[in-house]
């Protein structure tokens, strides 16, 4: 009997001695995967965006959707996540980014946002989105759950697509919105290196607009034949442009200087199509006209320089707020820098500080883009029946002190890790430390 009692004690001692090793044991190559199932976010402060905030309220995620919102929801078989004292927000949507389309900006081999040719509306960015881009996990842990992947170059560079930032195939990531991009001929300079004279710039822009008009005429002819039941040859460019004329897909027009925005408003005035403006850096100068035309706007980056040397230093910070006040529907984008799409909340934060206000700036990265993309039945706010694209934080997500603790995308609980975090974990206390 005595022996029998000692033996387990010895085992216990051995186990205790091994505990530190067992505890830190890692399976080589272990990967944390996203989890799918039912999750009950208990007792959080829900910042719904679509409606007033709900304090100390539960939110149930089931089948990829927000199943229920309410007090004291039954736990059933859901995994409970205590959100007491925390905040739950709808996932942020970047209204224009290269995320997924480029790995290393300087290496042409990794750039997939730019195709040859001036008229290539048939180019599908969704095809080129790399679900395994290193920047995607880096972005989503900041609460950005979706982004509009945009192509670049030429007059009609391709078809942009909204993606959710989790999935293994383009179809799994596709968010249900596409738009054909057009670059409105720009009379602005491309940068300090642009040494073209005023006249050259003007005549080049005129030439390009003539080209667009000619293309447009062709598209109308093509669309006319098609809608009259006639047969057409294989003409992918026209096939795609005709969808704009059929109002099956919107035309996203990249336009920035005040003068160009005005010309563009004239250009669309006699066209019966769905239009979204993108860029709109000088929107504040002609905000009334944009509002009057009821064209929604995807603007940004907000952390960028004024377009004119004579402009106020905060002209771009203040741009979204001024457009909003004039009655324009505004969504915010980071644009271009794929790798720092994670800074979307900070672009919104600066817009908030310089006139837009906190609430409206939050709307400009959640519900407003959802509305502009026609997806407000699916994303952009915390409402029952919407996709579970949301995050939990310990404070205001625009503040840099705030930690985001959980992210859900299409109901998947996203691993809160990425290469930046793994490097932090590896190198905070490096071993060996220093070679003497």
């Amino acid at each position, binding site marked *: 009997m005595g022996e029998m009692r000692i033996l387990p004690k010895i085992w216990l001692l051995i186990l205790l001695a091994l505990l530190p090793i067992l505890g830190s044991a890692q399976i080589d190559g272990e990967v944390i995967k996203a989890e799918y199932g039912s999750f009950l976010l208990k007792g959080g402060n829900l910042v719904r965006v679509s409606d007033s905030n709900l304090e100390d309220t539960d939110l149930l995620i089931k089948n990829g959707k927000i199943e229920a919102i309410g007090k004291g929801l039954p736990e059933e078989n859901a995994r409970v996540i205590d959100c007491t004292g925390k905040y739950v927000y709808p996932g942020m949507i970047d209204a224009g980014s290269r995320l997924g389309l480029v*790995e*290393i*900006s*300087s*290496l042409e081999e990794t750039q997939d946002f730019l195709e040859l040719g001036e008229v290539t509306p048939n180019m599908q960015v969704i095809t080129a989105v790399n679900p395994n881009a*290193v*920047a995607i996990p880096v972005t989503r842990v900041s609460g950005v759950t979706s982004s509009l992947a945009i192509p670049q170059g030429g007059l009609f560079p391709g078809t942009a697509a909204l993606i959710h930032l989790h999935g293994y195939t383009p179809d799994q990531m596709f968010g249900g919105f596409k738009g054909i991009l057009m670059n409105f001929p*720009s*009379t*602005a*300079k*491309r*940068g*300090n*290196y642009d040494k073209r004279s*005023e006249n050259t710039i003007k005549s080049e822009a005129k030439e390009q607009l003539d080209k667009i008009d000619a293309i447009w005429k062709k598209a109308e002819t093509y669309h006319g034949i098609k809608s009259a039941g006639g047969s057409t040859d294989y003409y992918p460019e026209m096939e795609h442009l005709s969808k704009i004329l059929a109002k099956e897909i919107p035309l996203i027009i990249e336009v*920035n200087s005040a*003068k160009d925005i005005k010309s563009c408003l004239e250009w669309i005035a006699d066209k019966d199509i769905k239009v979204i403006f993108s*860029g709109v*850096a*000088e929107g504040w100068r002609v905000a009334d006209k944009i509002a009057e035309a009821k064209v929604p706007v995807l603007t940004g*980056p907000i*952390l*960028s*320089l*004024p*377009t*004119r*040397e*004579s*402009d*106020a*230093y*905060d002209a771009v910070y203040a741009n979204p707020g001024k457009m909003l006040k004039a009655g324009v529907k505004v969504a915010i984008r980071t*644009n*271009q*820098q*794929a*790798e*720092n799409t994670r*800074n979307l909340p*900070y672009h919104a*934060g*600066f817009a*908030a*500080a*310089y006139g837009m206000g906190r609430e409206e700036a939050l709307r400009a990265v959640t519900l407003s883009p959802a509305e502009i993309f026609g997806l407000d039945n699916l994303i952009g706010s915390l409402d029952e029946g919407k996709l579970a694209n949301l995050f939990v934080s310990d404070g205001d997500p625009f*503040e*840099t*002190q705030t*930690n985001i603790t959980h992210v859900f995308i299409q109901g998947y609980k996203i691993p809160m890790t990425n290469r*930046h*975090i793994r*490097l*932090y974990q590896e*190198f*905070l206390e*490096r071993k060996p*430390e*220093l070679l003497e």
Partner: protein
Amino acid sequence: MKSALIYIAFSLSAIFLMAASERPPKGSIVIRNGNLLTITNGLLEATDLWIEDGVIKKIGKELKVPSGISSIDATGKYVMPGIIDAHSHIALETVNEASSPITSEVWMGDVVDPFDISIYRALAGGVTVSHAMHGSANAIGGQNITLKHRYGNKEPSGLFMNEAPRTIKFALGENPTRVHGRGKNIQPKSRMGVEAVIRNGFEEAKQYTKRWEEYEKNKGKEVPPSYNLRLETLRDVLDGKIIIHCHSYRADEIYMLIQVCKEYGIDKIVFSHVNEGFKVAPELAKYSMGASVFSDWWAYKFEVYYSTAYNAAILTRNGVLTSVNSDSGEVIRHLYHEAGKSQKYGDLSDEEALSLITINPAIQLGIDQWVGSLEEGKHGDIAIFDRHPLSIYAIPEMTFIEGVKYFDRHEDETDQRLKVDPREKVEAVYLYQETHNCMRDVDFFFTNFGRNLFEHKH
């Protein structure tokens, strides 16, 4: 006759004005009842700060000051030392002398542009001092100049911070190898070549020093050696008279230069950008004057692909003196926000985060005895914010340099240009431009059919 007299009078007054402008303007003012973020002595709530003739005379409650000194009510506001950017290219007419892998003879003080609107925009972000650097085209670049943002002063020298010690730009990795190796088919084409170029430079400088020392010893008996400003400068680097600020990214190249510097007895070296500095943090802590990093830039080229936004925090926790810089005419406007990111990525305290843009860069530039914290006896360089500067909603409201106000949001006029190009009929509109960066003026090596193939600028 009359016009001649007017001309003489005008010329004379111009001479007087020039003489007067030699001494940088200094002011006296008392900031009442602000929350002082002193950096070196914590947060002093509802405290006065008195600047007398450009210098912080006294910090304390309800200070008694002589009548006639104007005062500002800063109740509820936050007062911090003027922000310092340890890596910048604003207020420069040109950035790179890309003609040789070593150009230590050139000096950015010769190309300061006091009219650059970026200076005003930086002031509007609370930045009072910037380190205007040579670019990163050469393994050993030119000497830099530390500027005070005295916008409105039309003399380049009026912006110089005369107290600041000399500094020089070095650069490792992709930029010098691209410009010289791939662009011109001369060394360096690889990181081996970068080391060799730097070593060759140091060895030449040592031989040069020896020749001069021998000549001095045998004065009168020999023909003097020929004077060489390039080697003269490197001689001063070896003698510890110049602080190296080295553009670098990868851990291997950082480690290489640490080894080279150890061998040549150089300890005045700051690593800039230093995206992989976190991998050699213990070495940086022991053998350098620290690291000056981006808050979160990465992936714009291969050598920054394995970066982490936690860099500043890892470095700080390993005892590396760390600053956050802009390298950009855009980012310089919100360095307080960039410093704040070190709280998201690595939980730095408020004081640690603010040190990244104040006292730490001041130490790295050798100017910490004058600026970088709110202390009696230091320059009256301050920025006033409407709320804590680490909040995203904080707005810089006023910026002072040596007691003189250079920015006031409430008196801000839209057009702050000091001069307008008379050839310009309609003002140009620039879209999302990035005018100030490390690789300015070398773009011509990489353009093709009018298209800029050169997006990686830093």
